[in-house]
């Protein structure tokens, strides 16, 4: 594959064949031409109604259909919606909570804190029953209400948690009736559970601040303790995606040759305005709301765990949601495109919204500095908080990277981890890790990931999102 440099760390895959637009990839150094993820960027450019570019962020890696780190905006009138451009874990995302705790308050009781979080937030394969299994009616309320449902039920750090989430923690347009009985069966007892793989709950310290003004607006103070929660819509979201990919794949010849001849069956897409496209969007939005409720319930459980183990008051803990972002979602948004304000459906598959300063869609406390952009790294190094920029609004439909991006397959990570105790290696560096399975630790070790510092540096240098602060892990729980 031939690539040409546009500027700095931005590379272009020229349009060829049936590609409707070129591909654009942010990458530190020239992307490897044989990387299968680049072919996926080109494949996405075949989707009907795609505008300007098929984009990839610097944490790009091989996914299915879309690459992980892929962004595509579709014209609402003439464009396609592709469940593969959202992914199975609908609204997998991350939130950061700030606290009033100093590092030393927690360091002295780190094992007890981590163990309590591990006890109180169910983790691992098939984890369930963090809260009583939901009735069908309660599940409808979750699917429509998102994070707000959980706040109303008392799972909260502060009363304004939901307002500090992307979209207020709830996507309008969710259609609970479009979520099948099978999806409900997979999700009804999983609300408030972490899951496994790359999902985690982390106790961090604010290690460094790069932008004092933005850090102050975000409530990030060096030496203070923060929490990070990375999880998604659990089995309910997986099943929603699974069923719609199958149905759209089966019915795509109905939508004409543009839809029948896509280069990867996982790209299966339907016109946004079709009944099937609208039903998928309703179900996907409902699953996104389930994910927000899931992270919100875990927020409540984590706050209660900290209050219990540290024997302090809510006031002393001073926990509040800094922000909560989606990684896997398609959202109806308005953007300025070639001089006109247009309504588009932005697919972000392993990418983060990063709206700039002054945008009314950014919560008021952050509007002066831009949307918080939360970028988890790996459990042994660090994570970053950045801020959205005006340039992102011009160049990437207000999108940034979402994490470090995997370097190694899980099998290769296991081979490299053989004979090592990852938990002991981390403990030697002052990081307490508790995991349901040892294999997860090997699969998720730092060596398996790119250095997230290099990934966020690309976004910072390109002016897409600017560095605000670095978080470093103290305690980690994994599935």
């Amino acid at each position, binding site marked *: 594959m031939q690539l040409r440099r546009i500027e700095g760390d931005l590379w272009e895959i020229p349009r060829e064949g049936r590609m409707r637009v070129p591909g654009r990839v942010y990458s530190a150094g020239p992307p490897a031409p044989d990387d299968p993820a680049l072919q996926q960027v080109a494949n996405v450019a075949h989707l009907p109604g795609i505008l300007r570019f098929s984009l990839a962020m610097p944490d790009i890696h*091989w996914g299915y259909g879309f690459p992980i780190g892929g962004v595509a905006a579709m014209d609402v009138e003439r464009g396609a919606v592709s469940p593969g451009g959202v992914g199975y874990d609908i609204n997998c995302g991350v939130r950061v909570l700030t606290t009033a705790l100093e590092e030393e308050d927690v360091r002295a009781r780190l094992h007890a804190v981590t163990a309590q979080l591990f006890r109180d937030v169910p983790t691992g394969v098939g984890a369930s029953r963090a809260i009583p299994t939901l009735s069908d009616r309660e599940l409808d309320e979750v699917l429509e209400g998102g994070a707000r449902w959980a706040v109303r039920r008392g799972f909260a750090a502060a009363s304004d948690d939901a307002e500090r989430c992307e979209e207020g923690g709830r996507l309008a347009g969710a259609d609970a009736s479009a979520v099948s009985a099978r999806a409900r069966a997979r999700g009804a007892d999983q609300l408030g559970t972490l899951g496994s793989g790359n999902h985690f709950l982390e106790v961090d310290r604010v290690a460094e601040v790069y932008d004092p003004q933005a850090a102050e607006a975000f409530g990030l103070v060096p030496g203070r303790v923060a929490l990070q929660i990375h999880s998604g819509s659990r089995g309910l979201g997986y099943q929603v995606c*699974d069923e719609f990919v199958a149905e759209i794949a089966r019915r795509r010849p109905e939508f004409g040759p543009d839809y029948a001849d896509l280069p990867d069956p996982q790209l299966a897409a339907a016109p946004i305005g079709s009944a099937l496209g609208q039903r998928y969007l309703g179900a996907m939005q409902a699953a996104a709301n389930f994910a927000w409720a899931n992270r919100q319930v875990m927020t409540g459980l984590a706050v209660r765990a900290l209050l219990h183990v540290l024997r302090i008051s809510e006031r002393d803990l001073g926990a509040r949601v800094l922000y909560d972002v989606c990684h896997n979602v398609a959202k109806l948004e308005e953007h300025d495109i070639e001089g006109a304000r247009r309504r588009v459906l932005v697919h972000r598959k392993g990418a983060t919204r990063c709206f700039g300063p002054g945008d009314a869609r950014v919560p008021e406390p952050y509007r002066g500095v831009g949307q918080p952009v939360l970028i988890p790294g790996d459990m042994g190094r660090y994570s970053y908080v950045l801020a959205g920029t005006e340039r992102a609004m011009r160049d990437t439909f207000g999108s940034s990277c979402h994490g470090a991006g995997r370097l190694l397959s899980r099998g290769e990570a296991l081979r490299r981890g053989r004979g090592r105790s990852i938990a002991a290696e981390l403990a030697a560096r002052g990081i307490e890790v508790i995991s349901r399975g040892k294999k997860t630790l090997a699969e998720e070790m730092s060596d398996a990931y790119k250095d997230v510092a290099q990934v966020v540096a690309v976004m910072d240098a390109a002016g897409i999102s600017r560095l605000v602060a670095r978080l470093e892990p103290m305690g980690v729980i994994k599935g």
Partner: protein
Amino acid sequence: MRLASPQPYEDLGHTADVGVRVRGATAEEALARLVLAFAALATGGREVAVEREERVAVAGGPELAGTAVALLRELLYRLATEALVPAACEIVRADADGVEARVAFGRRDPELHAEGADLKAVTWHAARLEREGAGWVAQAVFDI
């Protein structure tokens, strides 16, 4: 042909997810091995004690690869909701319209199978069930 775990499979080395490839003399044999590779991922390769045997029939397509995906999707749903894991499998019929299998199921044990992968979904990306040389090859990529 009834095949029981363990059966050989190759790891595709997918960066984000897990892909497996198996081979067989017939499409049925390859597909049965793919089912058991799925079970091996779910259990971390540990043994599964058979509890019951069932006939599993699902509609399939497009093409044989779509049929393989359809069978795995059905088995994954049973794993997610009932903790059922295939321990042995015989493919009675597999074509572009669907598949009929006899599957001996055991249960996922949270302790014994703690190293198993949390399989979210069976993707359509790079799915195969087709002739290759004198035999058949089947592969699937699972989202984890």
